[in-house]
């Protein structure tokens, strides 16, 4: 019985020694020779060593529970954020945006719905042919720049993922052709020649004929009124001269002379 008990105690002791640190086993009076070193695993391992179950329990019980405020944070107004100074990168990007707005006549804003890099490459390549470049700027930079510039009305466009297509010359037709077949990016708005246009505005702009044609149309419209008045004024004397000429050219002037004169009188009274 005693031997059995001793064996049990020894076995339990060995297990304890194997699992707990050596210091504890020494405190219990075990000789170092009894210590079970064969199964002792190393303290420092390359993988994350799983916590002993007792240690896990201890950590769970002694976890820090922060005190909850009387009024939850959601119900209170948020504290005003201090204005942090702009970092150097933000300033450089702002300058770039400024240059972009100055140099390019057309700046179109598109929303990209997570298009892959291959699609973007394709789009970039197709647009390069028409000298249209693709630009990306962080929303924070764009918003801080626009809020202080004259393009403040473009502010609501810059929310979420955006792509900017910029070009020196406003080539809307080519741009729309390329973008038409790509579902990943959709046109939100554009700033063409310092005018902010919507989606429909850009489409209408692309349908406009060239400047020379429009100038010709305007000139034609203005001169139309004057040419009409000129025609009206000249109409009566011209008609009279035509009739007289016919009368002169007729072979028998004597007999039909009186009839011709009556005809001319009738026709003179009619237009007046």
């Amino acid at each position: 019985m005693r031997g059995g008990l001793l064996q049990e105690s020894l076995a339990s002791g060995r297990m304890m020694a194997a699992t707990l640190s050596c210091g504890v086993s020494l405190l219990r009076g075990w000789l170092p020779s009894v210590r079970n070193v064969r199964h002792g695993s190393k303290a420092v391992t390359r993988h994350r060593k799983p916590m002993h179950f007792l240690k896990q329990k201890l950590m769970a019980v002694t976890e820090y529970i922060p005190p909850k405020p009387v009024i939850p944070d959601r119900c209170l107004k948020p504290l005003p954020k201090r204005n942090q100074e702009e970092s150097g990168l933000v300033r450089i990007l702002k300058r770039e945006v400024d240059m972009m707005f100055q140099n390019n006549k057309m700046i179109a804003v598109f929303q990209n719905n997570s298009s892959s890099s291959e699609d973007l490459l394709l789009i970039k390549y197709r647009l390069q042919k028409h000298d249209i470049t693709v630009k990306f700027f962080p929303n924070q930079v764009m918003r801080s720049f626009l809020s202080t510039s004259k393009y403040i009305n473009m502010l609501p466009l810059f929310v979420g993922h955006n792509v900017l297509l910029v070009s020196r010359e406003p080539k809307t037709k080519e741009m729309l052709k390329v973008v038409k077949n790509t579902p990943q990016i959709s046109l939100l708005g554009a700033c063409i020649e310092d005018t902010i246009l919507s989606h429909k505005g850009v489409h209408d702009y692309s349908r406009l004929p060239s400047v020379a044609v429009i100038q010709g149309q305007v000139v034609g419209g203005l001169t139309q009124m004057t040419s009409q008045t000129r025609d009206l004024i000249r109409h009566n004397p011209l008609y009279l001269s035509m009739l007289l000429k016919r009368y002169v050219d007729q072979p028998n002037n004597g007999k039909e002379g009186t009839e011709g004169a009556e005809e001319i009188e009738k026709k003179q009274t009619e237009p007046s």
Partner: protein
Amino acid sequence: MAMSKGSLALKTVKKIVVAFCPFESNAKASREFLALVGSEKTRMTNLNCEVTVNIKHDKSEPVIDVTFVDGEKLLMNGTNLTSKEMLSAFISRCTVKESQMMEGTKK
């Protein structure tokens, strides 16, 4: 959210039309929803599903119109909703439809 994005399957969806006015401030949630739904991964789950964008300029409210395969429609007005709420509503409907479809195929 990452889990739901991964399990966002459009198999029971026929068509999604997202209409919004980009110059209005209430379009943010709809734009985020569109970005989530129109991503490559989500679209690859069902190539037959059309995701169309309708961009307006008439100060109207943003509307998301979802047409399912069995003809049911889900209309969401995005003025006062967040994208998370819209997405959760959409996903819950999708899962219900999918389970219905599975039961139908089993029978």
